[in-house]
């Protein structure tokens, strides 16, 4: 199994030696020559802000089992917890690798150095709304959760739109991909939650 692989490596190495002087490709060289970072302050703000934003979604969804959510809402919440925790991990990893400050996953919002209070990112619930949701049980929890999470997800889509409106932003591959994934996944989930909410409010009781 290994033999053909080694042969190929050797062939590739020969090709490199004859066509390029160094192991750095022209494309890589061009990027290095351009001398500018592949990301902007807006990218950092987006990624860092998404950490607190997602952390709040994780907290909201985490209440489902203890607040008497219906099984369908519980399944949705379970998925939101997994998905958004993974994305928090991605965001923290990206910031760490770029030697940027890594804010904590604080459900109250985006924690920035030198500021007294965490900043609410678009769509995030106010402390009053969080208290209202935390106080709800059963069917009322379902209704409020869906209403608030739709608001929360729309905020994430706003964050993506704001990012793309900044010159030079989202040029970095992982950031564009992350933003596009957030946009696609949360649009889909808003649709799902809208239908769940319709079923809840339109059902004959």
């Amino acid at each position, binding site marked *: *199994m290994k033999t053909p*692989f080694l*042969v*190929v*490596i050797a062939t*590739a190495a020969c*090709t490199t030696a004859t066509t390029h002087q160094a*192991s750095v*490709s*022209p*494309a*890589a060289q*061009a*990027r290095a020559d*351009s001398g500018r970072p*592949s990301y902007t302050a807006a990218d950092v703000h987006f990624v860092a802000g998404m950490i607190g934003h997602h952390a709040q979604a994780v907290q909201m969804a985490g209440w489902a089992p203890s607040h008497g959510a*219906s*099984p*369908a809402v*519980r*399944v949705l919440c379970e*998925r939101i917890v*997994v*998905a958004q925790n*993974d*994305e928090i991990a*991605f965001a923290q*990893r990206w910031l760490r690798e770029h030697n940027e400050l890594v804010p904590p996953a604080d459900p109250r919002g985006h924690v920035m150095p030198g500021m007294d209070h965490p900043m609410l990112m678009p769509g995030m619930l106010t402390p009053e709304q969080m208290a209202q949701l935390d106080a709800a049980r059963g069917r009322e929890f379902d209704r409020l959760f869906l209403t608030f999470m739709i608001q929360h997800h729309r905020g994430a889509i706003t964050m*993506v739109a704001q990012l*793309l*409106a900044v*010159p*030079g*932003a989202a*040029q*970095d*591959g*992982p950031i*564009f*991909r*992350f*933003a*596009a*994934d957030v*946009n*696609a*996944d949360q*649009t*889909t*989930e808003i*649709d799902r939650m*809208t*239908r769940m909410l*319709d*079923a809840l*409010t*339109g*059902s*004959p*009781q």
Partner: protein
Amino acid sequence: MKSESLFAIVALSVAACASSKLNLSTTAPSPDPRVGLRAGWMNAAEAAWNIRLVSTTPPSPDFINRSTPGDFQFTNSDLSFTGPYVIQGNYAGVQVWDIANPKRPRLHKAFVCPGSQSDVSVYREMLFVSGEALNGRTDCGTQGVTDTVSHDRLRGIRIFDITDIANPRHITDVQTCRGSHTHTVVTSPTDTANVYIYVSGSAPVRSPNELAGCSSAPPDSNPSSALFRIEVIQVPLARPEQARIVSSPRIFQDLVAPARHGEAPEDIAAAAQAAAEARANGGFTATRNGVEIVLGPRFVTFRLDSIVKARGGTGAPTAADSAVLRTNAQAIVDQIVKPPTRGNGPPPGPTQCHDITVYPAIGLAGGACGGYGLLLDIRDVANPKRIGAVADSNFSFWHSATFNNDGTKILFTDEWGGGLQPRCRVTDKPEWGADAIFTRSGNTMTFKSYYKLPAPQTPNENCVAHNGTLIPIPGRDIMVQAWYQGGISVFDWTDPTHPREIAFFDRGPMDSTKLVGAGSWSAYWYNGYIVSSEISRGLDIFELQPSAFISQNEIDAAKLIHFDYLNAQDQQQLVWPASFVVARAYLDQLARSNGLAPGKVSAARSALARAEKLSGRERRDALAQLTTQLNSDSPGAPQLVVDGQEPGRAADQEKVRTLAEVVAELANAAR
């Protein structure tokens, strides 16, 4: 007897030749060798079962950053094939490999042209490449586009002339409002002057200042909204430079919640129990979304009062009033449930598709669009129409579709997390980020089961269902599929309720300490081999190994299918030439399923082997005799019915008849 013993000798010698490799165990290796593989970039540990790695070719120098393992900007993406060439998309451009010798793929052309995700397709002398990201330039430059509005930006489809594939010549670009995440080349049986491209894209809509007319407003406030539609590009074959968007079908229009499988089991059980209790106590129930629900006291009181008033009465409702309500309850509920009432929010439904797989031979396409799997009628290629839809509460983001060869089944994938996330951990549910298998009858799709890579992966491996194709084994539905760092999995979904893995290949993670993106983006069968695009490690080529699940005859029959070119999302109908190996493949299947008694199987094998040595009239007579024998066997098949295999009976009888047809064709071909 004589011929049977001859066969026995042949079989023995084959077995002897292959004894060092042939694995006839019907159980998967345990413990699973994919668990605990050593991490590494080009030196990660590997595990394989019933499949052999023929070659791994690292990316060419312009498509790798040797100082940064898994550098995102050099992500290898999808594959397309033409002749001996495999075209590999990459976020930095396109690489063309000559795989005439699969042991030594040779770089034919490396073409730097950044812009993710470089989904690629070919048609005759044309190459189509998707551009979605903000850094893609019309001049293929590597400097990106920093302005928010720029006419240098390419988001859409690039079209190249590859008459000389070593020197792709740019023909034109077709810009679209959301760019192109993926695209699908569609040929029309009735319109041979054009080829069509369905463009899918889920990224945000660009500014109208960059591309006139682009709008992300909801369609009810702006009828030309780029949301809730797909784009259809027409490429005139004689004048490809005139390629343009010819329609933007709103295939999501009025998509009301389709019947959805996958209510949580607790929901279904609780609803059924509550309904039974309510009925036993004289309560009222009705069916909503396929689930029987109890009608609440407010609903019942209000409706009964209305009935009393309607007959001009007063006071408490009578038994007759209750009977009226019982008769009409379902109609009332239906009235309430649809259409759904809505507020001021955007209309529901997906705003775009992620990918569309067309199957022109049967006039259908499977669209994976937001939270839905759609069935499209594409007989009018420029104007696809939605004819069916499914949703699934376990599915997050519908990613792609694959039909089985006769179009009676459709498999949708859920790319939960977009491919960057590790969704095959022990803690991730088997029905999440998986495949969902549906049977299709007319416009109706019926859920049967989920299939997910059965081996748990580490949190450092991005893993979720991704791209694959059928492996053209006649008489069975076998598929090979990429699962990013979960490796590739070959599975049998002939029985749609019990899909089963039959071969796999996997590597350890890129890094044992953190998630570094890698793994198989696409794994496609092409002319006898499985070719896989490894995001960070290059190009892998595999060969299936005969096993208890797939015989050498079946592999040889699959190798009879020859494609001149292949775009995985443009599914071609597989038609096997009448050949002895196809007949033997069917016999192997009948032997495996006990669909034909062992004595009859070996008699048929012997008759085939004898006939193959004959020629002319003698061969024809021998085969005609076997045809007669098989036709008389078919009503009685199977001779052995194992408990629980009753549903296979009809399939086995059908297979014996198909085998008889192949033998009859062979007889007709003998001169």
